[in-house]
């Protein structure tokens, strides 16, 4: 079996998480979902995803804190992060810390295209 890149979705709103997951699957990713910041924090010490879709408003550990930790973790230095948020204010503040900032509502097709473009085997 071929080695699929790993996409990790951190999003507490289940329907949104599902839509993100379809998009990543269509883009050829293996997908795992976390609905809680604290769960994601723990899980990220075990796995090294190629792409993380990170919601900013989350229970327990908020997205921006998680982003800070991801960015300071050497293990995850090659991991790409898309921020998904409905808060344009936070999006503007964190613009530099993530590969992309996506303002909700996010189009499934758009996310699929972007995830494809950012696949590790697709980088020129």
């Amino acid at each position, binding site marked *: 079996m071929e080695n699929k890149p790993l996409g990790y979705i951190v999003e507490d*709103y289940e*329907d*949104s998480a*599902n*839509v*993100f997951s*379809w*998009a990543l699957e269509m883009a050829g990713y293996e997908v795992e979902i976390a609905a809680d910041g604290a769960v994601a924090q723990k899980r990220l010490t075990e796995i090294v995803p190629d792409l993380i879709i990170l919601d900013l*408003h989350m229970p327990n550990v908020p997205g921006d804190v998680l982003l800070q930790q991801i960015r300071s973790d050497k293990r995850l230095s090659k991991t790409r992060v898309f921020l998904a948020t*409905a*808060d*344009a*204010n936070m999006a*503007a503040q964190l613009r530099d810390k993530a590969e992309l900032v996506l*303002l*909700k*509502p*996010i*189009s*499934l*097709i758009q996310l699929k295209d972007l995830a494809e473009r950012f696949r590790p085997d697709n980088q020129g």
Partner: protein
Amino acid sequence: MDEMPEGMWARIRKVLSPPVFPGDEEKTRVAGMLNITLWIVLLMVVAFMIPAFIIAPDLQRILVGFVLVLVAVGMQVLMRRGHVRLAAIALSSVLFVVISIGTYLSGGFRGSNLSAYFGIVLIAGLLLGNWTALAFGLASVAFAGWLVYTDAQGLLPPAPATATPITFWGEFSAVLVGMIGLLALVMTNLQRAYERAKRKESEMSFKLVESQQLAIWAQEASEFKSRLLARVSHELRTPLGAIVGMAEMLQMDAYGPLTDKQEELLERITVNSKYLETAFSELLEQSRIDKDVLNMQAASFSPARVLERVIPDLRKLAEQKGLEFAIQIAPDLPERLWGVSISVEQILIHLIRNAIKFTEAGSVSVDLCKVDGKRWAMRVADTGIGIPREHQVSIFEPFRQVDESTARNYGGVGLGLSIVKRLTAALGGVVRVESEPGQGSTFTVTLPYVKPTIEPGSLVEKG
């Protein structure tokens, strides 16, 4: 009495009562007192001069009576024409002259003359304030001094036989009455000045407290509004994202082929979701401008890069409608400009989206160019429905579109251009529209080009 015409009393009362000057309390007050003084003078002339004239007519009395009547009537006229101060000064002066002549002719200075001068000082003080009273007081002292000196030289005309002989108590009581009157005058004026100052102070402190409170309320209301908008729009966007995503999933036939009707309904779901999305974006952005975009720091940025960021999505939108889409950057536009690049980006997005929204056929073109040594401009032109002249100002107001049906037909909540206007103003620029209904519109945003002087701590955009 019954035959007296209706309104006769009213007319008499009107003649007797002082003029009122609306909005000028002080003038009205002086006019009130001057009016009483003038009528008293007239009454005195009538009550004393006429009988005295009948009993023992002499030229001096006729002259004095005539002058006083003339003064009383003349000053009334002057006062009723609005020259209240002038009338008061003239009255005091005439009385001063008349009494001075009388004193001179009565054969010497005495206490009763002194109290007449006190009377003038009193009238002048009540009508015109302490300084005028002081001036008349000094004039009286000067005249009295001259009179006493002349008397000592024996140069005064002899006193008439009817003059009252001088007694100590008569002199003393006359002086006492005058002194008490003067003291009362000074006290009254001081009291009035104190009350006026106090009233002004309390009015001012009340106004200050009131304006501070209003400022606090306005601030709180504005912050609450921003938070509410951000919150509402956030809570609505998240589920909307799920709706859009799921509809797209079905449209891609991910769960089997769709019938035509299903396709059509899904299309409507997508269109309506897009409408909601645009509305939320505008609301959210408005709240963001209120909050902090206006405080953002200017930095050096590349206009070409701003265009690169915003154009792809918008070009797609234009192509979907079959519109021609052209972009041009004038070669003489500097490669780097100074300003808040996010604001510039937002202005462009709103103007271009607007142009595409209201254009059914033809083209949308975007030009960036240099205006002069100090300014550059972004110009977005379309061949759309255009804007009637009478709406060309109001379209920049929040929640305004040309008419209600515009919102339904074209989407958006009518905040786009108001956002453009506010961002442009925050950047120190102006936005202008030229439009001909049916021909199209051209929006021009002119922004100052400030030479980038690198200050410590200033932001310079990467790349």
